[in-house]
């Protein structure tokens, strides 16, 4: 049982990364607009995040050092600060969208204007950060997030021709009516969603919060190999649902409610109830992940005491940062800004900052003074990780120009 409960850090991290507010909409929008021609990006992203999250978890378990600590140490104060500013802004933007997302999920059930619910959601998020033990938090929201598996059920019940679905996914091409630029732009958004930096900030800090040691390396592997592929599966299921149910009727997706539509059509009322719980848990989980990551990154860059495993009094500045971040997120969300647009921009911006986060992880995972000669990367792992680093650099260079050329994918 303990082993079973031990993998929820990975599951929560992955759900918060792959199927948070922005990705729920982005996955469905991609399925409705590009059918399955971009599905191949998801497994590519899954392998990348598995490789780097495993390294970050291994380093955290062996020497107790989370990712942003290493970022400062390996990149120095200037590049570290550049990464901090980028990552922190992304955290605030994503948190804004998640707070709105939770409120929208609640308003779909309760028929109240979601803006009225945002402050209430913020208080809930803060209470969880303030009082709930880390492991309880990861279990509750990881477990509830599994409700999103109803998207897999929906694909199954729809009973598509699996051969056609597979050949559509296995044949990447730019669909007619789209330019190579929009195709690449949506591809980068999917890849950026899979490898969002706050996933490794949260996962490695969570490993420290959960008190992992060198004996927990198997747990680290189990978390990574179960959590992230599960996130990828959910992502593909949402895409397939939109492709199968919405695309034939020419329905585009630009709101959270439309994401749940295919499940309501195929599975019915019970399915809709389950999917709403899943969306609530995923967006709430992502809100926790980004709020905590905001505290983790700042505290670890400056060397402050941090974490939920300390009493709040013993990590005061960490909690002040989280409070201020939540406040900023709430104010922006209450301004009525479209939360989907906010996450679209934040995913793409995070793609531009990716190498600054992943490069230091690769360096330390090869340094025996940190993790001992027995635990450094093997040649095979280094080869894959290096290939991904090249991809990350290419993506980060291409992101901003593509955003300008495609007018953010419109």
């Amino acid at each position, binding site marked *: 049982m303990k082993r079973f409960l031990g993998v929820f850090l990975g599951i929560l991290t992955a759900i918060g990364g792959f199927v948070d507010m922005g990705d729920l909409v982005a996955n469905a929008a991609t399925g409705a607009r590009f059918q399955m021609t971009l599905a191949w990006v998801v497994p590519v992203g899954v392998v990348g995040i598995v490789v780097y999250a495993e390294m970050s978890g291994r380093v955290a378990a062996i020497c107790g050092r989370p990712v942003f600590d290493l970022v400062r140490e390996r990149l120095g104060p200037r590049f570290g600060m550049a990464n901090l500013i980028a990552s922190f802004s992304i955290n605030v933007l994503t948190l804004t969208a998640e707070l709105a997302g939770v409120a929208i999920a609640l308003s779909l059930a309760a028929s109240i204007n979601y803006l009225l619910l945002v402050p209430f959601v913020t208080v809930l998020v803060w209470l969880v950060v303030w*009082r709930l033990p880390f492991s*309880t938090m990861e279990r509750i929201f990881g477990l509830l997030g599994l409700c999103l598996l109803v998207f897999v059920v929906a694909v199954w019940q729809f009973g598509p021709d699996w051969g056609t679905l597979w050949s559509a996914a296995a044949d990447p091409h730019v669909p007619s009516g789209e330019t190579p630029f929009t195709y690449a732009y949506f591809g980068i958004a999917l890849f950026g969603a899979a490898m969002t930096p706050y996933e490794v900030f949260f996962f490695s800090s969570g490993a420290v919060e959960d008190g992992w040691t060198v004996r927990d390396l198997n747990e680290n592997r189990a978390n990574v190999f179960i959590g992230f592929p599960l996130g990828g599966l959910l992502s593909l299921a949402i895409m397939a649902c939109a492709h199968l149910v919405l695309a034939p009727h020419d329905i585009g997706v630009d709101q959270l409610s439309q994401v749940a539509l295919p499940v309501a059509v195929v599975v019915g009322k019970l399915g809709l109830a389950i999917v709403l719980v899943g969306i609530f848990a995923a967006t709430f989980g992502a809100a926790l992940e980004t709020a905590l990551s905001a505290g983790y990154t700042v505290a670890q860059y*400056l*060397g402050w*005491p941090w974490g939920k495993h300390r*009493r*709040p009094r013993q990590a005061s*500045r960490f909690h002040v940062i989280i409070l201020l971040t939540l406040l900023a997120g709430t104010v922006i969300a209450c301004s009525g800004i479209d939360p989907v647009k906010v996450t679209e921009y934040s995913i793409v911006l995070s793609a531009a900052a990716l190498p600054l986060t992943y490069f230091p992880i690769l360096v330390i995972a090869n340094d025996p003074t940190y993790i001992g000669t027995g635990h450094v990367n093997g040649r095979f792992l280094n080869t894959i990780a290096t290939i991904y680093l090249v991809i990350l650099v290419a993506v980060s260079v291409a992101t901003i120009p593509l955003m300008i050329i495609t007018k953010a994918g419109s």
Partner: protein
Amino acid sequence: MTTGRVVHAALHLLDRQLRDRHGGLCGKVDDLELERADDGTWYVTAVLTGPGHLLYRTGRRTAGTWLGKLITHIESSSLDDPGRIPYTHVSEIGITVDLAVDADDVATFAGERWARDHVIGHIPGSRHDADQ
């Protein structure tokens, strides 16, 4: 100087995590103070920490010096200058730099104390472990 251990200052010292004598996190090695001996060898004489030194090192020298002075002025510490920890007070250099002083005596702790006494300490539950 107690020992003549050779360390690569940029690699083994700069930007490392500082821990106090109880193992608590208390800032980063933001800069180093060096002194040149008669034979031309450079020695590390002190570890510099705190936002003032960080700003100074990243090129904002006027603002850094000003901030460093301000911290020294408002800080109550058993050290003469809480942002300057003499190298004799460094007990170990590993993947962290361990100090033989209390976190309370180090420059970056002024902010922690302020946040604790003026903000976090006033919120109910701040003294409890999360699982209590």
